[in-house]
């Protein structure tokens, strides 16, 4: 099932010029995680715990996120589940399938290699995926409007 895999997961790799301990802090601290991801999170990350928050990226409006932490192996591995692209306010996503996000840290000569895998997209309802595309597009439109306003056109 080659195609199945192709639509079920996303894999990313990046080399960061920073020690593993520094990268781990940016992942394991809810404050720091929120800062780079674009979320305002309440509470701390802990295995088996849930953290709620709001997306702070431009063009998202009032969007609530819930992160269910699964594993935290210091400086090596962290994983959690969430609803990908739960971008519409007022929609209850709690009964829908989640995706699994895994971070793997590895020491390399230049610093730290970080691998991110998000999987489980094939179980996300078709309607939700189509809607996410639409919402993403709405986000773009809003951002373009912001820019237009900013430059005073």
């Amino acid at each position: 099932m080659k195609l199945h895999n192709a639509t079920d997961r996303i894999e990313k790799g990046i080399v960061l010029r920073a020690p593993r301990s520094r990268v781990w802090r940016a992942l394991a601290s809810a404050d720091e995680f929120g800062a780079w991801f674009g979320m305002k999170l309440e509470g701390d990350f802990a295995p088996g715990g849930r953290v709620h928050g709001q997306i702070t990226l431009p063009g998202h409006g009032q969007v609530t996120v819930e992160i269910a932490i699964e594993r935290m192996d210091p400086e090596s591995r962290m994983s959690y589940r969430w609803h990908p692209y739960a971008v519409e306010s007022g929609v209850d996503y709690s009964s829908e399938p989640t995706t699994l996000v895994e971070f793997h840290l590895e020491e390399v000569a230049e610093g730290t290699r970080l691998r991110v895998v998000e999987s489980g997209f094939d179980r996300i309802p078709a309607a939700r995926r189509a809607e996410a595309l639409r919402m993403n597009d709405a986000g773009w439109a809003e951002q373009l409007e912001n820019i237009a306003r900013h430059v005073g056109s």
Partner: protein
Amino acid sequence: MSVHSAGWREASRAAPMFAALGDETRLALVARLSSEGPLSITRLAAGSSVTRQAITKHLNVLATAGLVSDLRRGRERIWELEPEQMDAARAYLEHVSKRWDEALGRLKQLVEE
């Protein structure tokens, strides 16, 4: 506003496609056509517990969504994938993927400060 209109077209094209793919049998048919290339109904039904009639019905649903097309070769109909449509089905993952790229770019900035 080219980004806006291109994205909109993609989204409205993708919706019926995800609906057509939201079925195990149809997803398996698409996977086989993807890995083995054009196939006849006979080949598609071989070794499967699903009847030829049922497979034909599923292929017609996929054809309506623009995912597959058929051509007659002799007395048989050969089914093949429409790659352009499959590309649109990947648009969703591309959006999520882009969001990760942006986020990881911000992470890089933060930890390399």
